[in-house]
């Protein structure tokens, strides 16, 4: 049981994740070089979000952890987005 609970991730999986992360980094640099106006920030943020999901899922082992930790991470993310959204509502309609 203990062995099953503790998943050993193969080295090559970590290497593939690294390659994906570096590729996404250069893609986010690329997208901001193209003139998209206000959308370039959005583009860069989408790439960063994908990267952070990769880091959380694989490097931080959320994929293999108990659902409680995944739920808490989701809750904190949601909390942060809610605070940001409400603050922007305030500034936008001032």
């Amino acid at each position, binding site marked *: 049981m203990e062995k099953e609970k503790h998943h050993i*991730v193969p*080295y090559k999986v*970590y*290497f593939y994740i690294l390659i994906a992360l570096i590729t996404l980094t250069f893609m986010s640099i690329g997208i901001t070089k193209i003139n998209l106006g206000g959308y370039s920030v959005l583009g860069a943020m989408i790439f960063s979000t994908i990267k952070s999901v990769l*880091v959380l899922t694989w490097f931080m082992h959320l994929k293999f952890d108990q659902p409680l930790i995944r739920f808490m991470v989701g809750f904190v993310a949601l909390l*942060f987005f809610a605070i940001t959204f409400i603050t*922007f509502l305030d500034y936008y309609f001032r």
Partner: protein
Amino acid sequence: MENATQHSDPHYDQEASKLGMWLFIFTELLLFGGLFLVYSIYRFLNPEAFRLAGEELNLTIGAINTVILLVSSMTIAMSTSALQKKNKGLTIFLLEVTIMLALIFLINKYFEWGVKFDHGIWPGSQHLINDMSKGEILFFGLYFVMTGLHALHIIVGMIIIIVALNKVQKGTVHADRPSLLENAGLYWHLVDLIWIFLFPLFYLIH
């Protein structure tokens, strides 16, 4: 009876230790989250000044440091696998590589900040106060506070990794008792996670 033979130390609880580390990580995420919110609002209010000030930053150093942090995240993640596979030598080697990469990141940061100082840009400098707009002063204030706080986390992360490395060497952290190394890894990934958002927000403004 069976339990008594399986567990050498009844006070060791790997899941609780992990949960505690995650709770700490949440406080860190919200600390930086607050700073990101401040940044977003001021950028929303001063878009042109932020764009102008962002061009002062060196994209190449920023990109190199991003790759360095990502690679170091991989090496420390690999070291936890190596520990579980009972490969002590490789675990230690991978941790040493991680520490070296962290040091290179800090050296790059030192030169990056040094160039800013040479240009007369630091919080409260005469050049900043006399020649720059309010938005630019805000940008550089946030730049120094946020990358500075992040660099502080790099230093703390290095200390934690060195402690974990020593315990792996001594044999008190091993395949059946890996929490310290795993939590050191989680902390290091947090540092990486924050940089993933710092990099585009400060270096990729156009």
